[in-house]
């Protein structure tokens, strides 16, 4: 999985640290770190929580082209 730079950018735009985002949505900081690094594939429920916390849409943070996903 590729790094999720969109999520990292959205978080930085909201001026939040990984810890603050993690506390806000009730997960560990390790989980946020792993998602941003592309090491963990979150469930749709967690994706939605992240989107709500960052005022973003699923497409903005988690959309991948089919070719990117296959690589």
């Amino acid at each position: 999985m590729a790094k999720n730079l969109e999520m990292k950018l959205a978080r930085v735009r909201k001026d939040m640290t990984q810890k603050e985002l993690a506390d806000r949505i009730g997960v560990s900081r390790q989980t946020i770190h792993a998602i941003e690094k592309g090491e963990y594939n979150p469930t749709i429920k967690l994706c939605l929580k992240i989107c709500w916390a960052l005022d973003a849409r699923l497409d903005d943070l988690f959309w991948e082209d089919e070719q990117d996903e296959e690589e």
Partner: protein
Amino acid sequence: MKKNNNVLDEMQEEKLLKIEHNTMLIAQVGLLAAIAVQWVVYGPGTSHVFGECLVLLTMSLYMVFACVKNGIWSRKSQKPSAKTNVTISFAVSLVAALVTAAVSYARYHAWKGAIATFAVIFVAMFALYAVAFAVTSAVYTRRSRQLEQDADREEREE
């Protein structure tokens, strides 16, 4: 493109993980029950339950190491608590001492011997568990701190 030999889809994969989780629980409880039954039938000792003890110990050690390595303490708490550690040590030691004392009494019909067995087993197991919990808590705390520092460093570098 990565070659994927897994023919399960994500829902089937999740169900398989749950099945494997339940299988491990059955194996752990089954091994404990097998050890307990053999101790009651053949008397305390490790010679006739060596295999079961070895498998149980290997499973338990793997679980502890894997959890600590990944910064996981328990489902109830992310931080070890001395109070919980002492409570669990006390409860487990009490049960183990009661069972051992009961087996001792059933075999030798000696009250004093059974009480002495209870006292020795309780104190020894309580001390062993308390030390094991204290060491594991310390290692876990250090590992958690290290994971946090690694994440901090990578966050700064990106």
